[in-house]
């Protein structure tokens, strides 16, 4: 095999160019919007009980994180390939000694770097607000206990533990990891679709559709595996859907992470492994579609 048939340095060059391209498209402006949302969610609803306040903050922040990651994954991936083709930038790139799969990998890694960096920054901002809010909630609750004259060390310890479980934990960052994994799959999926799609809009719409179905894929699969179904068409339909779409529901651990369930190393491994299978599969199919694509 030739020495330059695979070059991580070239892939990195393509990936960083993709990141600069997206960054200079002002995509990261979302980060500012995110921070405003998080701060608003953290301090705008003072009427509820402390636990609800922390939950709401987590719900809103994680919701924003998810929307950010899915939208960026679909839209930026869907934009990149057709744009390079339209601008004929692809010609100059591929007329250099660059294998086509390196180009694809470079684009995908670029999008993933951007999403990863975005999630990382948002995670930091969110953690800071959550920690601040949690400290305030704790101080208020301890103050209330003292006013009622029941601020025994045990009561305060229990309260601290309780608020701590609802507040900032390492576990929450693993929830962000789950969001990233889901976004990686969606980006790889969009890349695959853009390899045969005729327009950006088509890629966006189909990717979005598959993403939505993918969240309910578990249900479809269950339906397919369930006994006592005699309608062949329905069974066939559910089989096709289950085969064609990824099960994104696997990564919806956030609900329960917000409720304080612990993500073990094995659970994280299961999610990473499943995501790796999907991403590898989609990249492989993208390669097959792209390697002899007429440009």
């Amino acid at each position, binding site marked *: 095999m*030739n020495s*330059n*048939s695979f*070059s991580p*340095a*070239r892939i990195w*060059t*393509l990936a960083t*160019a993709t990141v*600069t*391209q997206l960054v*200079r*498209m002002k995509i990261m402006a979302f980060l500012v919007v995110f921070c405003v949302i998080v701060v608003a969610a953290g301090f705008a609803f003072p009427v509820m009980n402390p636990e609800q306040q922390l939950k709401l903050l987590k719900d809103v922040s994680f919701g924003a994180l998810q929307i950010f990651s899915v939208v960026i994954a679909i839209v930026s991936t869907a934009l990149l390939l057709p744009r390079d083709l339209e*601008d*004929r*930038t692809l*010609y*100059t*790139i*591929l*007329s*250099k*000694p*660059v*294998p086509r799969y390196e180009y694809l990998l470079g684009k995908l890694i670029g999008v993933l770097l951007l999403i990863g960096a975005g999630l990382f920054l948002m995670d930091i901002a969110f953690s800071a607000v959550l920690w601040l809010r949690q400290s305030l909630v704790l101080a208020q609750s301890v103050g209330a206990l003292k006013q009622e004259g029941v601020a025994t060390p045990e009561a305060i310890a229990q309260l601290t533990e309780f608020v701590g479980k609802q507040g900032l934990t390492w576990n929450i960052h693993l929830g962000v990891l789950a969001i990233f994994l889901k976004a990686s799959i969606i980006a790889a999926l969009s890349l695959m679709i853009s390899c045969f799609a005729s327009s950006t809009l088509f890629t966006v719409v189909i990717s979005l559709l598959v993403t939505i179905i993918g969240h309910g894929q578990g249900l479809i699969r269950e339906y397919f595996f369930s006994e006592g179904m005699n309608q062949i068409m329905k069974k066939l339909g559910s089989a096709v859907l289950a085969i064609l779409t990824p099960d994104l529901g696997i990564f919806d651990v956030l609900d329960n992470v917000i409720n304080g369930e612990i993500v073990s190393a094995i659970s994280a491994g299961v999610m990473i492994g499943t995501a790796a299978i999907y991403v590898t599969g989609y990249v492989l199919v993208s390669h097959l579609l792209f390697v*002899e694509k*007429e*440009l």
Partner: protein
Amino acid sequence: MPDSAPSPPAVTVENLTKVFKSGLGKQAFVAVRDLSLTVEKGEVYGLIGPNGSGKSTTMKAILGLLSPTMGKTTIFGKSSTEVESRRDVGFLPENPYFYKHLSGLETLLFYGRLCSMSGRDLQDKAREMLMLTGLEDASNRRVAGFSKGMLQRLGLAQALLHEPRLIILDEPTAGVDPAGSRKIRDLIMGFKERGITVLVTSHLLEQIQEVCDRVGIMAHGRMVREGKLDDLIAVENETELILADASPDLLAEIRTLAESRGAKWIRSGHSRTTLERLFLESTEEPKS
């Protein structure tokens, strides 16, 4: 490379046929039909023909951007389907575009890295190319603000960056003003002097004729004529004679002599400069 083995031509195209399938119910379109050509090392080969004659398709097939329906293409003996065949090629597409968000220099660094160049070498080479193409002032400007001619020159710089042995130019003078196109022609002459093989397409015959050693004329996906430029355009039985400061008497004498020897006098008159030369003379600043 051992001297004993005959070195392969820079480009070969053998019986290339390219059919574009369109959607269901529509007829397939034959862009190139059984085309063969060879570009020898060190030669400047011009492929000319009207728009839609299959020139760009042929180039894309040579560069491996399209896969031929039939036939094969090679670059320095390597099949175009191999990535390795593109190591020694620089390509300038028609109306090139680059990542708008990069500056001129960044663009060259990006392409250089794709060719596995790096570090000081790459930096130096990129600056040298900007100098060569007259873009040194624009090296830190975003490509988004470049004019068409500047994009074209940046495209050339990008194609030359890794010192290729073959340069493929697709309509390099399209949409460029005469000064720019003169500059491009000078560059092509420069490549030739340095022993670089050039394959260039154009639909403007005049612009190409000054620099090409050989030309191929394409129409409807086929090669209609091919050969050395002089052979192709020379009119065998006519001779041109250009004189300066000749008096009318002298001209009359020459005419009489010619006709007395059996030659046919076709026309005489003042030489005309080309509009292009006039444009260049009046717009170029006087050299100090």
